């Protein structure tokens, strides 16, 4: 069938139904480098507005750090722009191997393999290491990319209630007949900002002979005393069999990801993971930037310490102002509004006040749990946070939600 008017009409109707449902995604164009202060064109065609960015994954403020930019320039000069090949033909440079070694060292694992993104790492890893004799048991709130990877794998799949270790234990018992069992979780969950119970999980997996998989994309670089991730934070360094993570968030924020863990599992990915085999790996310029990021983070914990202090300051300010927050201590700080329309109106009013923060609602988060997800950065200074707090309080007063409980907000605005 050609793309005739009938076909076009069907797609137009689908797009219109997304708009009608209020879930049509619109991009905002940033005319500056990624940072705490950015210049944004929104809506499209409007004049530029200076705003404070409160929704980037730029946790360590390294996305535009001068040393990282300089290292990337040097990489571009010495290793060129592209590889024009997948890894196993002629797409592997010395710096790709160097980055794999440095990530292994940083995460405290046995070996590492780079992927074009963590989405690709998660999409490829399960199919490469498991068969239909095995079972994958995942937390019900894991990231979409893990769900895609699970779908591509022939192993049986089951889930356990979010962070519910009793339920996980029941599932480990239910599937005790399987050859391999892999328990799958995010380290820090991206929507709620809570941390997986890795210590308990590792104990259960020891008891039932299961492997542990952790996606530490929202943790690597800043969670744990030296920023190694949730395995450091939970005291289980060396006990996680597979870690996936991204270089697209705290670790420079450009792109790329990896699988890091047991050397045989990493080698299986090198032999069998399709996103590794059939796609170019990370461009040399990005590899050079990430190497510098790891060097900066290995020298000093200054940036993750500042992030921790900023996060505590922000949480305290919002709590004292009377907002309902998701509990936790990570830089993902969701301000709960419960009602979808309220989350959109709130976000728009914040933008008018010069604060860029996005409202999330169903299906991105469960129905009735709409929120503004704020994300704190080491790139924020106290004056950024104070200005953002003033704006949140002003808008919070407008909608009369300060000091109100979840029940009161839902009574006022509905679910």
């Amino acid at each position, binding site marked *: 069938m050609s793309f005739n008017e009938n076909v076009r009409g069907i797609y137009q109707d689908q797009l219109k139904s997304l708009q009608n449902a209020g879930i049509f995604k619109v991009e905002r164009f940033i005319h500056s480098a990624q940072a705490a202060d950015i210049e944004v064109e929104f809506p499209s065609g409007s004049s530029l507005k200076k705003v404070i960015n409160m929704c980037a994954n730029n946790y360590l403020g390294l996305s535009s750090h001068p040393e990282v930019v300089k290292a990337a320039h040097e990489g571009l000069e010495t290793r060129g722009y592209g590889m024009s090949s997948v890894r196993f033909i002629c797409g592997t440079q010395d710096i790709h191997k160097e980055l794999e070694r440095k990530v292994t060292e940083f995460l405290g694992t046995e070996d590492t393999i780079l992927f074009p993104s963590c989405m690709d790492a998660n999409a490829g890893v399960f199919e490469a290491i498991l068969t239909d004799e095995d079972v994958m048991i995942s937390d*019900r709130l894991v990231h979409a990319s893990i*769900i895609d990877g*699970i779908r591509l794998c022939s192993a*049986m*799949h*089951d*889930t356990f*209630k*979010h962070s519910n270790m009793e339920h996980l234990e029941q*599932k480990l018992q*239910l*599937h005790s007949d399987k050859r391999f069992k892999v328990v799958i979780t995010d380290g820090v969950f991206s929507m709620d900002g809570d941390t997986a119970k890795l210590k308990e999980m590792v104990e259960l997996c020891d008891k039932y002979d299961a492997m542990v998989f952790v996606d530490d994309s929202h943790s690597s670089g800043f969670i744990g005393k030296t920023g190694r991730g949730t395995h450091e934070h939970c005291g289980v360094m060396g006990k996680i069999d597979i870690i996936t993570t991204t270089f697209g968030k705290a670790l420079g924020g450009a792109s790329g990801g990896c699988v890091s863990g047991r050397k045989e599992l990493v080698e299986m990915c090198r032999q069998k993971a399709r996103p590794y085999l059939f796609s170019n790996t990370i461009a040399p310029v990005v590899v050079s930037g990430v190497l510098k990021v790891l060097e900066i983070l290995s020298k000093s914990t200054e940036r993750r310490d500042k992030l921790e202090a900023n996060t505590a300051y922000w949480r305290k300010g919002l709590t004292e102002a009377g907002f309902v927050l998701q509990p936790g201590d990570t830089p993902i700080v969701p301000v709960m509004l419960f009602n979808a329309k309220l989350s959109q109106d709130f976000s728009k009013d914040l933008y008018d006040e010069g604060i860029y923060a996005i409202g999330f609602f169903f299906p991105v988060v469960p*129905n009735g749990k709409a929120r503004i997800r704020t994300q704190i950065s080491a790139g924020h200074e106290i004056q950024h946070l104070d200005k953002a707090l003033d704006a949140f309080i002003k808008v919070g007063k407008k909608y009369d939600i300060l000091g109100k409980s979840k029940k009161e907000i839902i009574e006022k605005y509905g679910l």
Partner: protein
Amino acid sequence: MENIKDIVLEYVINEYLEDEDEELTYDTPLISGGIVDSFSMVSLKRFLEAKYKISIPDDKATPEAFDTVNKITELVKEFTG
């Protein structure tokens, strides 16, 4: 066969409901209603197979056949004779 219904209902409530206030009947749409995602069906299938010592072929274990407690009961009855 009321007993099967109640056993399935109890399992679904314990397995899938996060909020204790949620109510579930024999005809509440589980999969199309977003209570059970199609991924999580596997534990229900394994539970039924172990409990009633039956084997449900994959082509019968469809989201439609698992959509309500009543439909699941019908499916179990088909295999228990």
